[in-house]
């Protein structure tokens, strides 16, 4: 029987190996916060090149800078994973050809009444200009009367100088379209290395791509996590080796925790779609809370008694379980997934520590000097602490400010953020990317034109391509216009004025044999970062709009602003967290009433005081982020257990000892994160460390 713990782990490992193909783990961070539909739209936007752009800027606007730009552009073109390098606004041959072919449709057409006199007048003006003008006045033999006029096209959506794209007030710029998105770590690392290798030869260059954060931050995070894992392991070894001197207990607790994590991982990844790796990581950390059960059993020598269950641990476990079970109904996948994992792993751990460990021949805890009981006259009553906690909570809610910006949770890579800000200054007009969809190319163009008509300064395929209906209308208009008459008068008058005979013989023949309105190849605008993508019988493209608020009026437009999306999701999450927290609070109150009866306030304080204490400090010195909220949940879970143990304890000194070890181990698991410079981890560390300190104060100061 004493090997059962090992056997369970081996069995679970075997099961994990056998079922590895049925386990679904998602690595897409968005899946934790956004709906499936939104994620799909972001994937489509990714396919359209959104967030896969890279920018390189060379300082200065002199000839040297241009030379550098040309050299860098040539070198970048040879890098795999780079799809397009653009340093100038020169249109491609395909675009030039397109403008030529569709000129009568794209140009502005002045359909004014041309009389013989007006034509004569215009031709005379042109003739005289040839020898009198200080500047060359070209004569267009195809359109001498300038009936067609192509408006100057600044639609390329980039600032430029002498044909080169520029970053205003800095220098010339190269726009690079890559194949790498921020979530593809390996490709991102390779491309990052290749690009930096090239640019190291060129001083005074700046480079930025969204995936640089992935590469640079992950390196920083990796080294921090290594440090934290070492620190955490050292504290745990200190607890087991130096304080407890029980390696047997360490080994079995470690195996039991591992089995619990494995069990929860198996169930959650097999039965739930897209269970996220971050939920697994947090769930694993939460499993550490179950070590409370072990310490309580160990210090009360439960394993040496014949009792099947310890009522205190059972109530502690059930209350925590209920809290997480309720949280699992929150519609935000992040919270729901962690809660489901916690329910599974804590239940498994409880079963192992309660029913299996008595068979493992755990050494009896030899009572040493018990912690000295404090003079109870110096302690505060639970009513005072309860009222104080309520006051702190009221203060906290009155001053609560949420931080919705997911970026703030990441490692604050200030160097890269500064570079990003320089490149962002390009977008002075603050353009927002949106996804536009339709069932056909014609409908897509129509939708884009509707968007252009209703939102000024929009940039999309419609900046270059007319919608089919308008194109057909122009063709009809041109077919009805009497160009033959105009041509005849032009030729007649021109020869009288002195122009060469038949010079205008082909005038306005370009208005005949016009191309089909549906024959425009949209692919040619890829150089302007405009393309389309077909998915599930729908066709999509990106557009840049100035007023994001107007977007909701168009059913064919969806936002792909990740920042906005996160803000929306976190707001929803905060709302449901607050709502569900009240529900959980009622359940916990019920459970406490059932388990601790008269000591109700005393037990409740273990949950209420640490959370109100931490929350009040947080709102005083910073805003509250999602990681703070998550850590408060852990703190509540730990607090419930301690409250029940302390209220019902018959041997208080041993309970205090168990709690001290438990506090230390919780600090080893979560508190050490306070040393991290990554906001997400630091937030957890701050909440847990302060919370543990509050619990410690309660243990010493509440009667």
């Amino acid at each position, binding site marked *: 029987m004493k090997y059962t713990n090992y056997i369970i782990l081996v069995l679970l490992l075997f099961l994990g190996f056998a079922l590895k193909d049925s386990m679904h783990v998602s690595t897409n961070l968005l899946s934790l916060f956004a709906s499936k539909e939104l994620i799909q739209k972001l994937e489509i936007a990714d396919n359209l090149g959104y967030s896969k752009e890279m920018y390189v800027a060379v300082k200065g606007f002199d000839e040297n800078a241009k030379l550098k730009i040309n050299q860098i552009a040539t070198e970048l073109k040879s890098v795999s994973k780079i799809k397009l390098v653009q340093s100038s606004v*020169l*249109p491609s041959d395909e675009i030039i050809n397109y403008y030529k072919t569709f000129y009568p449709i794209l140009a502005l057409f002045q359909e004014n009444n041309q009389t013989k006199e007006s034509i004569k007048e215009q031709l005379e003006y042109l003739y005289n200009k040839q020898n009198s003008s200080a*500047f060359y006045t070209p004569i267009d033999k195809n359109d001498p009367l300038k009936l067609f006029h192509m408006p100057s096209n600044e639609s390329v959506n980039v600032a430029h100088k002498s044909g080169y794209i520029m970053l205003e007030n800095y220098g010339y710029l190269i726009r690079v379209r890559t194949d790498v998105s921020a979530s593809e770590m390996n490709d991102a690392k390779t491309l990052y290395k290749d690009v930096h290798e090239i640019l190291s030869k060129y001083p005074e260059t700046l480079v930025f791509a969204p995936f640089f954060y992935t590469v640079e931050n992950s390196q920083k995070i990796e080294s921090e996590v290594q440090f934290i894992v070492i620190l955490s392991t050292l504290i745990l070894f200190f607890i087991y080796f130096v304080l407890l001197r029980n390696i047997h207990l360490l080994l079995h607790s470690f195996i039991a925790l591992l089995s619990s994590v494995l069990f929860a991982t198996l169930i959650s990844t097999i039965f739930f779609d897209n269970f996220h790796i971050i939920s697994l990581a947090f769930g694993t950390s939460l499993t550490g809370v179950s070590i409370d059960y072990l310490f309580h059993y160990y210090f009360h020598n439960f394993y040496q008694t014949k009792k099947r269950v310890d009522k205190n641990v059972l109530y502690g476990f059930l209350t925590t379980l209920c809290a997480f079970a309720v949280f699992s109904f929150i519609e935000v996948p992040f919270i729901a997934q962690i809660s489901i994992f916690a329910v599974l792993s804590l239940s498994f751990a409880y079963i192992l520590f309660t029913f299996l460990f008595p068979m493992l021949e755990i050494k009896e805890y030899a009572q040493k000097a018990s912690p000295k009981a404090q003079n109870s006259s110096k302690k505060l009553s639970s009513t005072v602490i309860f009222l104080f906690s309520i006051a702190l909570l009221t203060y906290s809610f009155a001053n609560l400010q949420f931080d919705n910006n997911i970026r703030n949770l990441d490692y604050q890579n200030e160097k890269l953020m500064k570079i990003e800000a320089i490149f962002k200054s390009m977008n002075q007009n603050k353009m927002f990317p949106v996804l536009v969809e339709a069932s056909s190319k014609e409908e897509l163009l129509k939708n884009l034109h509707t968007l252009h008509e209703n939102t000024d300064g929009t940039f999309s395929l419609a900046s270059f391509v007319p919608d089919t209906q308008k194109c057909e209308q122009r063709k009809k208009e041109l077919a009805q216009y009497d160009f033959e008459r105009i041509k005849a008068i032009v030729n007649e008058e021109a020869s009288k004025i002195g122009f060469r005979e038949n010079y205008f013989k082909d005038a306005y023949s370009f208005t005949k044999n016009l191309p089909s309105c549906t024959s425009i190849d949209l692919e040619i605008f890829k150089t302007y970062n405009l393309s389309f993508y077909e998915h599930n019988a729908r066709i999509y493209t990106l557009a840049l709009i100035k007023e994001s608020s107007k977007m909701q009026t168009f059913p064919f437009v969806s936002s792909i602003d990740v920042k906005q999306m996160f803000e929306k999701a976190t707001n929803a999450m905060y709302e449901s967290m607050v709502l569900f927290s009240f529900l959980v609070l009622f359940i916990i109150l019920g459970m406490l009433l059932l388990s601790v009866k008269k000591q109700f306030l005393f037990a409740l304080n273990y949950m209420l005081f640490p959370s109100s204490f931490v929350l009040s400090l947080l709102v005083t010195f910073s805003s509250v982020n999602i990681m703070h909220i998550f850590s408060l949940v852990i703190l509540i879970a730990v607090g419930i257990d301690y409250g029940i143990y302390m209220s019902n304890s018959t041997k208080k000194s041993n309970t205090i000892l168990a709690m001290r070890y438990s506090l230390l181990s919780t600090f080893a698991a979560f508190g050490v994160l306070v040393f991290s410079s990554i906001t997400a981890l630091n937030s957890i560390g701050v909440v847990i460390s302060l919370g543990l300190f509050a619990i410690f104060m309660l243990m010493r100061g509440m009667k």
Partner: protein
Amino acid sequence: MMFKLILIFLLFTSLLIARSFNFSEIRYSDAIGRSFEFHGKITFAHDALLINYNNDEKILDYQNGVLVYMENMKQVEISQEQKQEIIQYFEIIMMLYKGENASLLNEFEIEKTDNLSILKPKGSLKNFIEKIVLLQDKEAPKEIKLFLKNSDTITIRIEDEIH
């Protein structure tokens, strides 16, 4: 006041490094089958080009991206479209004069033989310019001949420097 002073100072310093030449411009108009010859003074400075025709008081002044046309010392408005055409034309002449290889390579394919270069446009310039033939003497441009799409030609001959 301060702004004006700065402007005068900038103009003064830019003129200090400017070089002026006598020049002739021959425009062949295919529409009327005749050539017209103009003479004047051309001044190159950093980011500036000034053309002053001899016979009449007509000046084209292009500085830092701004084009001003003057007749008899009075500014005359010209259409935006025409302005753009002249600016584009001036930019090309400035590039050729300065020998800005990077800029030229960006916009043209260049075939070079001894003192003669043939430049064929790459981008939308293709719609207006067939080619440019540049004749140089010790790297300094002596003659620039533009062959335009409508079969017109413009020949600019840079003659003796005015000291």
